[in-house]
């Protein structure tokens, strides 16, 4: 019995030491954890000192949890060496998602650094239930409108399922893949293009067959040259008879002026 009590005391003492050690560890690490949890990424999260490109997060529609935002920041950081990167969510009413994306880019990313113009943003518009990728400058040469459409076509279903983190992560992963010079899968594009190409090929061949099988009818000049024709005219007398005047105003046309300045990127999106 005594032995049992002694063993229990020893175990209790060991547990107390362990608990104390854990508590001490928690005390040491708690300032870091508190910072991650408490400081929700918002605004300019990171700036690359060498390039001046930055990482912007504006989750105004509060679609992502803090931990998801932190994870997303990690995903997005790989892109900063290619240009400024932004993630935006909104639930405000605007004239169109593409216009909003353009304006957000201009406001937060465009011309904000001394680096060469380059940037891309991903916007989730909850008001119009659209997702949109807008790119500009160097990145736009890679993340073209076509690729923006392809990427949003691929990820819109995550937004439909309210998995916004996965949606955004897939967007930035795909962009990184493209910027690193690798390819992204576009199965539907290839499938539709192969049918489209086949239809166009048959149609083009048909038009060629019609064009080249058409026999050339002789011209009137050729017909005239193949017969014995005599045409003579003399004693020509022209007399003026009368004159008439018809009102026929000239048609006028004018062209409009040019557009304004600003960034000249582009993008693509998808409803969800």
């Amino acid at each position: 019995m005594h032995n049992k009590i002694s063993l229990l005391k020893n175990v209790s003492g060991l547990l107390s030491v362990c608990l104390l050690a854990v508590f001490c560890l928690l005390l040491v690490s708690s300032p870091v954890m508190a910072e991650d949890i408490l400081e929700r990424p918002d605004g300019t999260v990171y700036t690359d000192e060498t390039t001046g490109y930055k990482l912007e997060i504006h989750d105004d529609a509060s679609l992502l949890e803090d931990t998801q935002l932190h994870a997303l920041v990690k995903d997005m950081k790989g892109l900063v060496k290619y240009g400024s990167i932004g993630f935006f969510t909104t639930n405000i009413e605007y004239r169109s998602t593409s216009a909003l994306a353009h304006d957000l880019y201009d406001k937060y990313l465009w011309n904000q650094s001394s680096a060469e113009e380059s940037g891309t943003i991903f916007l989730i518009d909850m008001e119009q239930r659209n997702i949109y990728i807008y790119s500009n400058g160097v990145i736009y040469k890679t993340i073209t409108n076509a690729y923006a459409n392809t990427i949003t076509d691929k990820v819109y279903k995550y937004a439909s399922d309210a998995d916004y983190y996965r949606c955004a992560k897939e967007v930035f992963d795909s962009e990184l893949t493209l910027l690193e010079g690798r390819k992204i899968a576009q199965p539907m594009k290839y499938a539709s293009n192969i049918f489209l190409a086949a239809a166009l090929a048959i149609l083009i061949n048909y038009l060629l067959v019609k064009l080249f099988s058409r026999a050339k009818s002789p011209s009137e000049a050729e017909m005239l040259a193949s017969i014995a024709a005599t045409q003579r005219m003399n004693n020509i007398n022209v007399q003026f008879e009368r004159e008439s005047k018809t009102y026929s105003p000239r048609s006028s046309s004018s062209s409009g002026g040019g557009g304004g300045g600003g960034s000249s990127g582009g993008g693509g999106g998808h409803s969800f």
Partner: protein
Amino acid sequence: MYECPNCGGNLRYDIPSKMMSCASCNSKFDPYEVSDKNGAQEQEEYEVTVFRCPQCGGEIYSTDNTAAGFCTFCGSSAVLESRLQKEHRPKYIIPFGQTKEQCKKAYMNMMGKAVFAPKELKSEKHINEFRGIYMPYWIYDVQQGGAGVQLKGTTEKRKGDYIITSYYNLNLDLNADYDGIAYDASSSFSDTISGNLAPFDTREMKEFTPAYLSGFYADSADVDNSLYAGEAEEFALGETQKFIEQYPNLRKYSIEEQGKMLQWKLHSTVDQVNGAMFPVWFMAYKNNNRVAYATVNGQTGKVVADLPVDVPKYLGASAILTIPIFLLLNRFFTVIPSILLGIVAMIAAVISFVYYEQIDDIAAQEGKENDKGAIAAKKRKQRKNHRKAPGGENLPPKSDAQLAAAVEDEKKKDTRKVVITTESSVVELTDPHMAMRMFDTIIMVVLVAGGLITGGVLEQYFTRITVVLSAVAVIVFWFRAWFRMDDIDARKGRGMGLTWILIPTILSVAVALINPVSDLYYYSCAGILLITMLIALVDLICCYNLFATRPLPQFHYKGGDDRA
């Protein structure tokens, strides 16, 4: 058959030497001397051997009595029945100037470019079947003008917002003669082929002598010589008008008088009409119930041939062409699914337009709607049948010209004018077929251009607008093709490839209007539409082959075709 005076061998016309040549002793004789010796030169009629095909009833004749073992009209290999007959002699002939070897060379040159043509059409065995046939033509001499011709001329100039038109009286002495305007006189010889084989240089016509037919065949004239008088006058009228308007002192005037009024003021008359024989190398390629003709102008060497397509070869070439187009599309064409659907729908509309045009062309060709000679032959047959009917009081007109004029009048009743006005000119199309075709083309151009412009300006409405407009076009052209299909015997009961496009088109309209979020709907619609478009396109090629061939002829009387 003409016998050689030296050895009694068979004399035939030799193209290179332009003389009658004996195959046995190689002696050469002038064709007119040979005919004189046979007493054929003075007679109104001359004796020929008529060869009749037991399969189609087609008849050709020759002064030679050796027939080839196949029919020129239907391409059948058969022993031709022969009989002697008297034929009315034409006034003129253009002897063959192109040898068979030259004809084959010209034909092969053309076939070298016809990459999709069946290989049989290029085989040595096949091209050896070219046969020299003299086709009958009517030669019209038209006279116009005289002393003191009075015409009205106008000039126009713009002054500010006004157009000043000045009117003038033009008095002139005019002499315009057109001798040798030729139109084919055989109802079995397609006007399309004869029109494209033209021109024959009628200045090189010689006085007809039967000796020229030795070694060749001939078709007989079976349409009235007044049938093309109006067309000959119309051609002459156009040339005279052009001559007056381009005359140095009159260039600035536009002639007011047109058509019948101009004809009357120019004292236009068909001075005389004569029969003539023109040389044509002729070959028929039979495939199942269709026949394709290849013809070579025996004077100039111009080739006019039906060019059917070898479907497997065509599809193979299309498959190869698919690869670069696919690569180009992948490089430059990435669109969102809804835009893809709009573009595919527009292509479907274009295909339906092309399909309808093809069906319309086939129906016009099969019904010989533009072949005046065939129309006259058809009317003549109706007239014959009518006479046999009891109480046949309302007899159709007697001559082919009156019959053809009746047909023209019927056509004019249905004529809808299309007037296209631009800043500088007014184009008036009175041919209803041409007018409708022009209208269709404008509609299609507006649809495609409008769709693309809409895509650029109103991106969010692009799919709805293009899909709905395309669906309207598909349905309209489907209906029109469906109605026209009744005029094509060879397609009866076979349906239309265009029908396949209908359902996915309607489905596309539903998807475009509902505008679902999921891409699956757009891709599915576009995919189904593309597959059905491929089916319709393959059927279009089969339709083209109907257009590029002709039904096997069935002649029940000399020179006539009961399908005409």
